[in-house]
């Protein structure tokens, strides 16, 4: 199994005033191609901190992070932007869509930064919206969409540039259970199609569907269970 993600002794310290919070305390993690990893753990245990580091949105205080063979620590802002653009698709709990842009424009965004031509952007974004069953909502603005639809737009955006890994931080946290289920089955389909996924969830039902469950507590991995294939 090739290693897509390799974390070694990763620590993250937040210092707020005189107080120092150790959000991650020496964490090792490897994720291979086409794994579907669910990260679980109590609130404040460091899951989001870990996810932001995986997504190159944040940098560890110490330790090493290798993504697709490239050491991420110490890269400049431009290179990090390229990695986020090419390798990572990030899905947030609160969707984070641009409010004034249509669904189609939101999905086109990563392609814009990848330098893809306007015509191709349009085609690929439209195809991706079809894929998440929103082909009939392309010209709608986020405010004209339901929560579940917004999250599907966000997933289309995360996938449109064919990322190496899809990261999702509590993607169903803001959704009702029906919409949540639709999202979860979409993730299962994607995984079945070969997509590597790392997802944070509080829902043990969702975690059970993953091929591997990693439990984080106090900034450390306390349990790492692979489902029997």
């Amino acid at each position, binding site marked *: 199994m090739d290693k897509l993600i390799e974390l070694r002794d990763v620590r993250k310290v937040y210092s707020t005033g005189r107080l120092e919070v150790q959000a991650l305390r020496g964490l090792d993690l490897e994720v291979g191609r086409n794994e579907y990893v669910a990260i679980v753990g109590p609130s404040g245990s460091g899951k989001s901190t870990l996810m932001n580091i995986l997504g190159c949105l944040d940098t560890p205080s110490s330790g090493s992070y290798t993504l697709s063979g490239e050491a991420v620590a110490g890269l400049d802002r431009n290179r990090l932007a390229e990695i*986020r653009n090419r390798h990572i698709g990030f899905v*947030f709990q609160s969707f984070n869509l641009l409010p004034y842009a249509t669904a189609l424009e939101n999905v086109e965004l990563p392609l814009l930064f990848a330098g893809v031509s306007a015509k191709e952007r349009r085609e690929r974004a439209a195809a991706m919206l079809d894929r998440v069953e929103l082909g009939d909502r392309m010209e709608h603005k986020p405010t004209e969409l339901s929560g579940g639809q917004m999250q599907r737009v966000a997933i289309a955006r995360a996938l449109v540039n064919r990322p190496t890994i899809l990261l999702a931080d509590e993607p169903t946290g803001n959704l009702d259970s029906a919409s949540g289920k639709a999202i979860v089955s979409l993730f299962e389909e994607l995984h079945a199609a070969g997509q590597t996924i790392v997802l944070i969830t509080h829902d043990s039902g969702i975690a059970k569907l993953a091929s591997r469950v990693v439990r984080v507590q106090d900034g450390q991995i306390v349990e790492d269970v692979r489902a029997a294939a």
Partner: protein
Amino acid sequence: MGSLSFFRQMLQDVRQQKLRTALTVLGITWGTVSVSLLVAFGEGLEARIRANQRGLGENIVIAWPSRTSLPWEGLGKGRRIRITEEDVEALRREIPQARFSGEMSRENSTFRRERVRITPEVSANSPIFAAMRNIIPAAGGRYVNDLDLDRRRRVVFLGDKLKQDLFGDQEAVGQTVMLDNVPFLVVGVMEKKAQDSSYSGRDEGKAFIPDATFRGLFSERYLENFIFQAHDASATPDVTRKVYEVLARRHKFDPADKEAIGMWDTSEAEKFFAIFFGTFRAFLAIIGSFTLVVGGIGVSNIMYVVVEERTREIGVKLAVGAKPAWIQRQFLAETLTLTAVGGVCGMLVTFGFLAVFPLLGLDEYVGTPQASPLVIATTTALLGVIGMIAGWFPARRASLLDPVVALKLA
């Protein structure tokens, strides 16, 4: 997500910050109007004053023979120096880098036409006098020429005001006027000109006749004054020195005796004006720029607010792979657009004002301010610089945002 959405984003910002954006654009508009009007008025005033200057002649020197103030080769001081046409001929021969014209005049000869009687200043001179003194014949007429001189013709060229007094609105060229009961043919009338300095009344009220005719008529030998003009204005001091040398030799006075021949070098005034208006223009531009800078600070300020409000959006863009330079460009472009809108409004106001201004009838005093290329270039350059600076700092702040912080994930 092309340019369309850039404008949509901007419209979004404008909508969210209606009043603030309006005030900001107004600030830039006001600044633009100040700069462009101040520069335009400065230029108009300068053009006006220079035109008045030109009315007398460009870089000419007027020379009056007077009395010696220094003893010379046994001759005492206080001796009267009198200059004749021969002296002027000698100057022409010996100083080829300048042109010369003598002038005789009379103030007690009466012009009569029908029932009108006027006693104007009569100036007798040579054809090049007109060129040196910027006396331009109006269409249909001409100035005194060499043939008039050779044949001692009785012809007269009238100042425009004098013509008006004698002929009213009637055609004057080809008509006859009586000068001390001698008939003179009017050959030309002066084109109206601006003239604010003179040494014997304005040209508009004078009559000009050939000097040869004058000499014959009034048996006068001596010149009242003569004027000269170096072909290259910068040679004026050199020519002046040579004029003293030639005349001192011919009339036996000390070439250093400046009082023997009084001189008025109008190019001195030109030098003064060059410095004065350079400073004046810079001063106006600086004052105008300050207004524009204040406007620029307003734009910068609103852009900080916009960046603040769009922090999350910046975070989203960074998260999906926008490079810092892209973010920076976006906000810089937005600032420049706001500045440009203000600038265009300001220019329109200025153009409108300048179009209406001549109707107020003040041009005689302050000149006609114009939206000259200099005005437009100065204002545009200032706007560009101010827009760039105003946008740079907020745009830079936006581009340096940390994705986690911007997304409020941390």
